[in-house]
């Protein structure tokens, strides 16, 4: 499902005399229509496609009307390309400032999966403005945010830009009562670890297995146990789903079978009914029961399918390795596990993910492993991944352990010598090398690995770690928890230093007298670069425990595979 489907599906578009829908790709659109309308993200690639289409028409001597609608905004560069390709005069351009798509009662998505690669890999800041605009929109709708916190370079820039927007257009939000008490902005690169872990909460698992797109999932024949696949909207309105989405997968089956029994019992009630009761039952309850029945069977099908897939890949082994990496023991064993994973060509994306996880948790790979794993990987999955590795290194996802602390030392010396600006540049240049993840130290400091006496009871979770089977509290969520508790970054200096974010964390509090206690329970968490369903589940849990209500705004819902794919270079 695409964002467009969520807003105006095919039948609505047809009602408005849209003849046919095409995907924007490098293929000629065979259409006899007199008008073509392109709804595109402002990307140069798309512009070239549009241009080639228009030029092909010109060659064939056809005249059509072309309209290019840029969403969420028009970029000068795109118009430039149209101009360079000589079609600027033939098309008319427009802008559709659409930035927020509500996927669920507590989830807003900007549906910008490219944000991650653009910003964190290419250093392209184009979307920051879009984020600022979206925040501005929210503040015009819900009043000013009395408490703002953020961490990360992008968060800081977005925040500053947003502030400028507010200042320029003040008067609108001034004097309004705030409806949302807190906003927290977080860069994805503050916590890559969480995003790289295998998800075991139901919603996350469904995403990892079937890919949830725009809040909807396509269940194939193996789930529906028929020959057709089924599109299912996954949100709070699906009552069955709503009850299991945040559950650890091990509980889901039990829950579903219990549910099935209850449902059966409700069906069974009709046995002793007289005509009147039966009429009532049929007219009022039956539809609901049938609906529930249908949903139940879908989710049971999904669970079975997940089980099958996961056991096949020796999921338990995988999870065990991940936990070992998170906790930092048996590194050698884990490394050979990864090596075997690569040798067996299990999955290029999975192998890459494990390598990254190993690198981040260990502050980079030791040079020997760095080389051998990469060699193995290239041999298994193709030499073009040399570029992928270069990307991962630049993003700080897969790095080589620096011998000692030499680089950071050089860096600090340099920054003392030259001006800040130049130092910033040098830091940028070194960032991939110097940016140490320090995961182990952070983990200790923030107590991310819960100490468990005996079995962790996944049915009755004690903390957010339940989303990873009790082995690990998501770093991002822990940071949010800590800051909300303190209402500032105070006392987290050491953590910030370890996160390389000393300069990049901010708190902005205004007087709270106008904010109602109701609004202060509401927290908008903004993930720049995407968030996972596990993080959402963890924060929902935190909300229940502490009496908060979280609302999520993300550039896109992501997971480990999407992150890795964004970093991969595939042959054109």
């Amino acid at each position, binding site marked *: 499902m695409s964002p467009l489907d969520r807003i105006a599906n095919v039948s609505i578009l047809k009602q408005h005399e849209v003849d046919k829908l095409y995907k924007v790709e490098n293929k000629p659109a065979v259409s006899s229509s007199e008008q073509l309308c392109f709804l595109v993200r402002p990307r140069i690639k798309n512009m070239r496609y549009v241009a080639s289409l228009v030029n092909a028409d010109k060659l064939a001597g056809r005249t059509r009307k072309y309209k290019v609608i840029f969403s969420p905004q028009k970029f*000068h560069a795109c118009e430039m*390309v149209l101009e360079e390709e000589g079609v600027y005069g033939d098309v008319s351009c427009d802008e559709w400032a659409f930035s927020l798509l509500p996927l669920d009662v507590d989830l807003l998505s900007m549906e910008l999966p490219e944000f991650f690669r653009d910003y964190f890999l290419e250093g392209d800041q184009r979307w920051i*403005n879009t984020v600022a605009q979206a925040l501005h929109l929210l503040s015009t709708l819900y009043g000013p945010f009395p408490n703002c916190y953020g961490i990360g370079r992008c968060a800081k820039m977005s925040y500053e830009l947003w502030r400028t927007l507010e200042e320029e257009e003040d008067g609108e939000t001034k004097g309004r009562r705030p409806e949302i008490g807190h906003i927290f902005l977080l860069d994805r690169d503050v916590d890559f670890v969480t995003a790289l872990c295998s998800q075991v909460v139901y919603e996350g698992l469904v995403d990892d297995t079937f890919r949830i797109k725009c809040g909807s999932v396509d269940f194939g024949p193996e789930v529906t146990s028929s020959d057709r696949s089924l599109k299912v909207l996954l949100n709070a309105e699906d009552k069955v789903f709503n009850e299991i989405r945040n559950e650890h997968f091990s509980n889901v089956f039990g829950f579903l079978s219990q549910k099935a029994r209850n449902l059966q019992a409700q069906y069974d009630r009709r046995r002793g009914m007289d005509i009147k009761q039966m009429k009532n039952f049929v007219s009022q309850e039956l539809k609901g029961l049938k609906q529930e029945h249908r949903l139940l069977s879908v989710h049971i099908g999904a669970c079975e399918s997940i089980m099958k897939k996961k056991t096949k890949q020796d999921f338990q082994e995988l999870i065990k390795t991940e936990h070992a990496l998170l906790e930092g023991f048996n590194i050698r064993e884990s490394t050979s596990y990864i090596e075997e994973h690569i040798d067996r060509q299990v999955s290029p994306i999975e192998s890459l993910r494990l390598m990254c996880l190993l690198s981040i948790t260990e502050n980079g790979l030791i040079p020997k492993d760095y080389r051998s794993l990469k060699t193995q990987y290239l041999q298994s999955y193709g030499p073009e991944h040399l570029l992928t590795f270069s990307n991962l290194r630049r993003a700080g996802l897969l790095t080589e352990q620096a011998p000692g602390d030499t680089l950071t030392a050089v860096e600090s010396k340099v920054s003392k010598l030259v001006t800040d600006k130049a130092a910033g540049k040098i830091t940028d240049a070194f960032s991939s090398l110097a940016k140490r993840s320090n995961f182990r130290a952070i983990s200790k400091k923030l107590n991310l690995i819960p100490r468990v006496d005996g079995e962790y009871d996944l049915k009755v979770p004690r903390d957010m770690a339940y989303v990873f089977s009790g082995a690990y509290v998501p770093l991002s969520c822990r940071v949010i928890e800590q800051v909300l508790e303190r209402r500032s970054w105070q006392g987290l200096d050491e953590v910030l230093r370890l996160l390389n974010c000393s300069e990049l964390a901010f708190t902005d509090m205004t007087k709270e007298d106008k904010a109602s206690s109701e609004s202060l329970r509401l927290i908008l968490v903004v993930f720049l670069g995407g968030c996972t369903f596990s993080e959402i589940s963890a924060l929902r849990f935190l909300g229940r425990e502490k009496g908060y209500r979280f609302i999520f705004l993300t550039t896109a819902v992501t997971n480990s595979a999407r992150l890795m794919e964004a970093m991969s270079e595939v042959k054109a």
Partner: protein
Amino acid sequence: MDCYTANWNPLGDSAFYRKYELYSMDWDLKEELRDCLVAAAPYGGPIALLRNPWRKEKAASVRPVLEIYSASGLPLASLLWKSGPVVSLGWSAEEELLCVQEDGGVLVYGLHGDFRRHFSMGNEVLQNRVLDARIFHTEFGSGVAILTGAHRFTLSANVSDLKLRRMPEVPGLQGAPTCWTALCQDRVAHILLAVGPDLYLLDQSACSAVTPFGLAPGVSSFLQMAVSFTYRHLALFTDTGYIWMGTASLKEKLCEFNCNIRAPPKQMVWCSRPRSKERAVVVAWERRLMVVGDAPESIQFVLDEDSYLVPELDGVRIFSRSTHEFLHEVPVASEEIFKIASMAPGALLLEAQKEYEKESQKADEYLREIQELGQLTQAVQQCIEAAGHEHRPDMQKSLLRAASFGKCFLDRFPPDSFVRMCQDLRVLNAIRDYHIGIPLTYSQYKQLTIQVLLDRLVLRRLYPLAIQICEYLRLPEVQGVSRILAHWACYKVQQKDVSDEDVARAINQKLGDTPGVSYSDIAARAYGCGRTELAIKLLEYEPRSGEQVPLLLKMKRSKLALSKAIESGDTDLVFTVLLHLKNELNRGDFFMTLRNQPMALSLYRQFCKHQELETLKDLYNQDDNHQELGSFHIRASYAAEERIEGRVAALQTAADAFYKAKNEFAAKATEDQMRLLRLQRRLEDELGGRFLDLSLHDTVTTLILGGHNKRAEQLARDFRIPDKRLWWLKLTALADLEDWEELEKFSKSKKSPIGYLPFVEICMKQHNKYEAKKYASRVGPEQKVKALLLVGDVAQAADVAIEHRNEAELSLVLSHCTGATDGATADKIQRARAQAQKK
């Protein structure tokens, strides 16, 4: 009080007209008004005089002087007229002076005599010269109508959007019409002209003869015509001294009058109030002024001096050398209150208040009288309304005092009308002041609106007063103070004698961070005046970087624009500047500029990646960024290039770059890739099939699957494939082939580096339990249980686990015990466990 109505003159039974002085003029006129071209703008606007017009032949060498005065006679501008002879002057609705020259050229001047622009009324006018011209106002703006020497009319209904229209010819017209006027009806401009006893109406397409309804007989010529302010009414003065007054369509007669003066009047204008039933025109001769209406008698005034009439919305202004007066119909509210022996509630209230001030009990009597009639509300309203129409502040005050007094006895009288009137009067009194000289009446002020009034104050450069008014009326800053300050600043930047620093500082001090003020607009103005440095200084104050950039680009300060754009965080803006720079600078300078701006650089790289690959390479080259250069060539080796040689060459370049970047790993990997490519090519040639672009692993697998075991082994050796991988690879491939014999041979070739559990797993995957069992026996002790479970031998697995006394293994086996078949085994394990615990 007795004399208050002394200047009231009754016209008929129902209306009074009064004339009062606005200003005593102290302009130092050297000439008589009659010797000048005169134009006075409505709504208390300025007066323009052009002395020494050309119709007098004397002293042609002396250049005439164009002078502009405020309504109170304060000089605003004076300039020597250097252009051609002027036929007519007039003011546009924006208070710009239009000077129509004989040749049809129209020069436009500002209030302060600053030349604005000029336009021409067309060739036809140029050839035939202008005989007469009128400036008239329409709902679109101001129009110009021209009567040419050929007795044809040309007009434009809106001078700011000039469209010339040549009106149709009047058939049989020999001489100039005796009188004519421009009419505006149904949003279309017409011309009405009189030729002898005939009247013609010219519209766009046709000329039609018209006859006023009910016109008295015996008229042989029309001497003067007057259109009312709103174009609704028309008055005609005939050579018999008869005046016809009716609607502008001429289809209805309102009234007529015979004044028995046959001399053509100098001026004739309407004098009526909006929403009043009374209609009257004021006719002026050399020494006589007459107000005529629907009454047998007229009101007559003697004019001591040469005077000039200015029609207004609600009356007529009359100015002469020494005075400036206003003549109008007394408004109803005033009439009710001040009429002698009036018993109107307002009159009583005014009386009551006066008695109250005198501490007389009569106050109570009057008040009771009003209250008994239940007319107190009406009385208060009357007093408020009448106050608005009074010119003298003392009268305004006494009426407002009365209103306020009356309000005390009312329970719920909404205060707005009173408050609003007090505010309005304060504003009106301020602008009527001699120094400002805008004698607006209350009705005119309401019609004009405060926004336009502020504009006019700004136009007169009366910034402080305008700001005071805004603050006093508490207008929103964006509409009020900020707008005025912005105008002031734009005026300020034009002061060329003040240094850039001083101007910039002065402007910033005044404007500060006032919302709604755009520094970039002011800067643009400064740039327009040729003060680039000042513009840059002003832009520094602009808080929105996005606003700074376009102007900086326009001023060719591209580098500054670039850093501002980067500051703004708006990538699109940065990009706009980049493209500008790219065209402006030579390549080397452009790259150098980029080098200092990492954000711009990465943006440009993005663009190049898709659009200009060669430039991207140059960029990397310039920065000695060999790593990226290497990646660039690798990417190139995959793009489009089909020929293997080309690809290998690209890879070679990449490898070289990687060496330079000291990235030996990448260099080696690239070299391996080159080798592999060549080899794959050879394989394709020799064996057929598809090998190109497979990974090494897949290449070897393909070879094994194709039965080329030797080649596969050779390849593995050449590329130093580790043993573990090779074993996995072979194992999988052979199992896929289901070549169990070969597999067994392979398994026995030497000790497996990956153990034998994988053999079991893979065989089971191919559902070959028989083969799997073979290998299960060879699995090492640690994995034995697992292997046995894999082949489904639960019982034996249990035995091994018990033997190992390994708790984890025991539970693993137990979890595999299903149903009745494994019941015995399960028991066995339980027993073993129990035993273990005992120990």
